[in-house]
């Protein structure tokens, strides 16, 4: 494979030196089989060891390596340079997050939001550990799509609402709330819908739909959010009109 060159234009921010982020350019050789992450590693290993970014599995399952590539949130390990190469490949940290250093952003906020939707099975009676709860293959289909979330944060980077309203629970946390609500073994729908039926919950969402466009795992958080709006409304109506039934 012939070696060609590409310029990586990477947003740098070194908090001890810089008052604000700025771009730095690197010219690197690349091959058809290189992904953007390979380019970043080439720069770090051979040209500029100060370049800082997160990565681990390099196969699109750990969710570490999210960044904006030519303005679009992507996993750098799954984006081939040949596909985004227009002479220059611009790499920015994910939109909508505070920048810790270079491409490393602060997403602790997401983990708090995730914890707030109780992302675990909630039940009264746990039974014993001698057998499983029965769950049919079609039951799994009901929540399978939302269970695929790798917490890569591309959806938060894509959502303009997250950008303007930091209290919005956001796509991934909402998708995971739905994953548990739809799990036939769970009994915690009520508590989750209570939390989501608020301004900081699903109602901030205006169905832009970009989250589902950028999701690398096809989780469809946009669909999940609209479903949650429906479920939250139904629950609210039930409690208003039939309070005795709803409290069961």
């Amino acid at each position, binding site marked *: 494979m012939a070696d060609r060159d590409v310029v990586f234009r990477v947003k740098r921010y*070194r908090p001890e030196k810089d008052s604000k982020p700025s771009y730095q350019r690197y010219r690197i050789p690349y091959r058809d089989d290189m992904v953007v992450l390979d380019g970043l590693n080439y720069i770090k290993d051979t040209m500029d060891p*100060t370049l800082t970014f997160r*990565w681990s*599995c*390099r196969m699109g399952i750990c969710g570490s390596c999210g960044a904006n590539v030519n303005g679009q949130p992507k996993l750098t390990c799954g984006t081939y340079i040949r596909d985004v190469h227009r002479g220059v490949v611009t790499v920015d940290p994910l939109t909508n997050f505070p920048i810790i250093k270079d491409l490393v952003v602060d997403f602790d906020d997401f*983990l708090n939001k995730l914890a707030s939707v109780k992302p675990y099975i909630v039940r009264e009676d746990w039974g014993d*550990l001698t057998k*499983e709860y*029965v769950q049919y293959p079609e039951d799994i289909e009901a929540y399978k799509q939302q269970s695929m979330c*790798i917490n890569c944060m591309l959806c938060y980077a894509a959502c303009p609402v997250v950008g303007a309203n930091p209290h919005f629970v956001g796509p991934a946390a909402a998708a995971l709330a739905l994953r548990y609500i739809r799990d036939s073994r769970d009994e915690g729908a009520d508590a989750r819908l209570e939390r989501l039926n608020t301004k900081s919950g699903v109602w901030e969402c205006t169905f832009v739909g970009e989250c589902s466009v950028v999701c690398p795992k096809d989780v469809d958080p946009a669909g999940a959010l609209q479903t949650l709006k429906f479920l939250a409304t139904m629950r609210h109506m039930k409690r208003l009109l039939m309070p005795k039934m709803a409290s069961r």
Partner: protein
Amino acid sequence: MERATYDIVVVGGGGAGLRAAIAAAEADPSLTIALVSKVYPMRSHTVSAEGGTAAVLRDYDSFELHALDTIKGSDFLADQDAVEFFVQRCPEEIYQLEHWGCPWSRDPDGRVSQRAFGGMSVKRTVFAADKVGFHILHTLFQTSMKYPQIHRFDEYFVTTLLVDGNACAGVIALDLRGGQMIAIGAKATILATGGCGRVYEFTTNGFIKTGDGMALAYRAGVPLKDMEMVQFHPTCLPGTGILITEAARGEGGYLINKDGERYMQRYLPGKMELGPRDILSRSMIMEMKAGRAFKGLYGEYLGLDLRHLGEATIDKKLPMVRELTEKYMGLDPINEPIPVRPGQHYMMGGVSTNIRGETAVPGLYAVGETACVSINGANRLGSNSLSECLVFGTATGRAAVEFVKKKPAFPGAATIRDALKKEEARVFDGLFGRERGKETVAGVRVEMQQLMERDVGIFRETTALSDACTKLANLRERFSQVALTDKDRVFNTELTAVLELDFMLDVATAIAHSALQRKESRGAHSRTDFPDRDDANFLKHSLAFRTDGAPRIDYAPVTITKWQPVERKY
């Protein structure tokens, strides 16, 4: 905050670490537990496991059989009491994970499904499509959010253990975000940092698998057991090293050479593609040496043929295999065989522990791939390691709680302060502050990886192994010439790369020396100059102890209960 104290500190937030933390929180909710990880827990490498996790769940199976398969798979190096303990506890771990929401794939009757796997006599591998590690890790991580007593220290890199007298009193870690060091004192410390695949050039392992916990224990005087036992997984994508799960063969996939023949009939006609991984990896190398392999951009490879399984089966049982192959190889497995070759995958060896996860140092525990109990001996069967993380995660978490209940005091403030100062000097003045060196961290690292790949790989022999030992000592010298370009304190990943390389050189040295001293072939350790298994002299565990020079290799007996070693025939 420079100092904090917890009852238990768990280092590493993967399957084993999370399971241990949860088990400890459940055993005694009044205890405080710190979970310290250099990455956010859901990034831990458990996430990439694909195939499944084994347990005896059905009538056609038995603990005896699971134990026998495991012990035979280990080439009789496994400790049989540990194996018996292990197989008996796998089922309840499966059901516990299931209760916590893990989406195991199901049979039409709603019960948990099981599939065939390499070296297992019957179908006992529980799975979740082909993303079992992802689902286990996310289930554990999300479930851990239920326990307010588990405090997470995300992106804190542990640089050394806190030692008080002869006991372990916690850890000292670098806060990546703030750039300063913190001492976390604890009555019990559990190491669950995974394996060390990144000492090799071609590995399925993620970037973070640098043997940190192994090196931490090693430096505290704990021996590393059976380090020469390195598992090479037969089916990795050439170039990237991305894993293609054994489940592909479990569902019926074939391995073919360039002539289209299922070459395993030459090496293991009984089990064919479902033989144990060490035999399969060696067979591939032998096919390559015989000139029957395909040749491609990244060297030689064999073919994993799934075409006859059909699109429906592949999409249902192996969807991620299809996605990975399309994305990283540019071909569709329903139309073409997947190029595969063997790559480093797992460490059977690790920190020497007993069944309770205890090491030789009181207060110090190890669990998961970091540890060597040993249940995997000289070769691990696929789908046993996730079960190991769960079973021993629970056992070790509970053992740590019992230990903590008996121990009256936290380590003293003065001890902690002094240890912290000393470590800050070592890291900041020593490593970080070093002026101008002629080596780069990447340069030394790549050389280590290449020499391990070449000299301490699937087939080993004396000259290459001795050579490796010498070269590693040389690299250790050159490491002292590595200086940092990045002098920022905030999120300095060049510094963490240096710290990781420091750990990796220790671990690689233990591997090479242990391999040199084991003059036989057993399981994954294959010597061309000593091709036979030698029970008379080597039915024992290697123990590598750190010294200022070459590691001192000693031995410990293997515990045999029911199964006398016989020839390992499949």
